[in-house]
């Protein structure tokens, strides 16, 4: 059986979710591996969300917000960006491939870049293979 990645994407209400919507309306060709969780702001995405997803067996996690400077809440995504940098390093310290997580920005109009991003990330996760980090102690 070929491996189909299971990917979780956190999209902010104001930009990236609208981009996803637009991509859908535009019937753009994109993989179906992504499950989207709509959040009001990428700043809502606590690192716990990402760690929990990986811990529960999700193969990759995307966090998509508004571009810096365009946040509906002005600085919500500033915090996301800082946290993400720390989280990436932390995963690496503990032996989890940081390429399984990605932070990016998409405006409400960027349907095509959104689509491309998803395609790229899905391929990247496909190459990395199934999440080996899940599961408790036997």
């Amino acid at each position, binding site marked *: 059986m070929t491996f189909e990645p299971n990917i979780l994407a956190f999209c902010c209400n104001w930009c990236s979710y609208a981009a996803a919507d637009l991509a859908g309306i535009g019937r753009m060709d994109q993989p179906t591996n992504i499950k989207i969780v709509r959040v009001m702001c990428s700043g809502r995405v606590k*690192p716990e969300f990402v760690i929990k997803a990986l*811990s529960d067996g999700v193969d990759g996690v995307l966090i998509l917000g508004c571009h810096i400077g365009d946040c509906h809440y002005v600085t919500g995504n500033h915090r996301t960006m*800082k946290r993400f940098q*720390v989280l990436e*390093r*932390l995963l*690496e310290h*503990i032996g989890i491939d940081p390429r399984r997580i990605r932070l990016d920005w998409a405006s409400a109009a960027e349907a095509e870049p959104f689509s491309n991003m998803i395609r790229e990330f899905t391929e990247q996760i496909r190459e990395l293979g199934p999440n080996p*980090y899940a599961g408790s102690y036997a």
Partner: protein
Amino acid sequence: MLVLMLEDIRKLVKRTLDGGKVDGVLALWRENGRVGPHLFVKGDDVSTLEIDPKYNLAAVAILALASGAKKIALIGRGCDERALVELFKRYQIDEDAIEFIGMACSAEQAQACECDIPYPTKIQFGEKVDGVVPNELKNVDDMSLDERFAYWRDVFAKCIKCYGCKNACPVCVCQDCVLEDPMWVKKGEIPPEFPMFHLIRAYHMADRCVQCHECEEACPMDIPLTLLYRQLRQDMKDLFDYLPGASDAKPPLTTVLEDEKLEEGA
């Protein structure tokens, strides 16, 4: 040398108490054959004062002040000072309520803790010695990702969920701890889920760990927590030029991007 220093500290404590500017001096004492924290007050016998083993007194200072003391002196090491700085910053202790009396750790003490900064900024007793780099740090650095995952997975299998790391930590000050929220960590399971429990705690330590090693000393299983937290401290330095406990700068995970970083982010 150490004995002389101890005598000097006792004398200073007596003078401080007699001076009447503080309500008490928080330090260690020997009582019932054991050594533990004690708030010396005027009239106490200062000959019972000790400086070993290490107890982080910053967390105890919160309790001592909760009794209604207006100002206390604290005989502490570098890690006590760093913890105090974080506690001041996070509104847990009023800076004016503490008179810090700093001791530099000896080479042996620094080695015992594998401490990177075994001295406070303000040294009243002892002499500054070099920081120690733990051998294990290089070991984990040299591992592949998979090896490292296996290493930590094995190490954390020993966790018995005593929450000692959280309880002993002087800068873990949240009333409601995310580790106790069943949303994130399954209740009643030993060992707790890996990597959830430990990654969450590590993340929350990133901009606050002052490398006092209290968590590791409180761990009944000797899990090398400070190894992981030390790497995160370095990250904070690299990413945000910030070292917890070293300055009164705001913790970077609570602030917004500055102009320069804004460009980068965009």
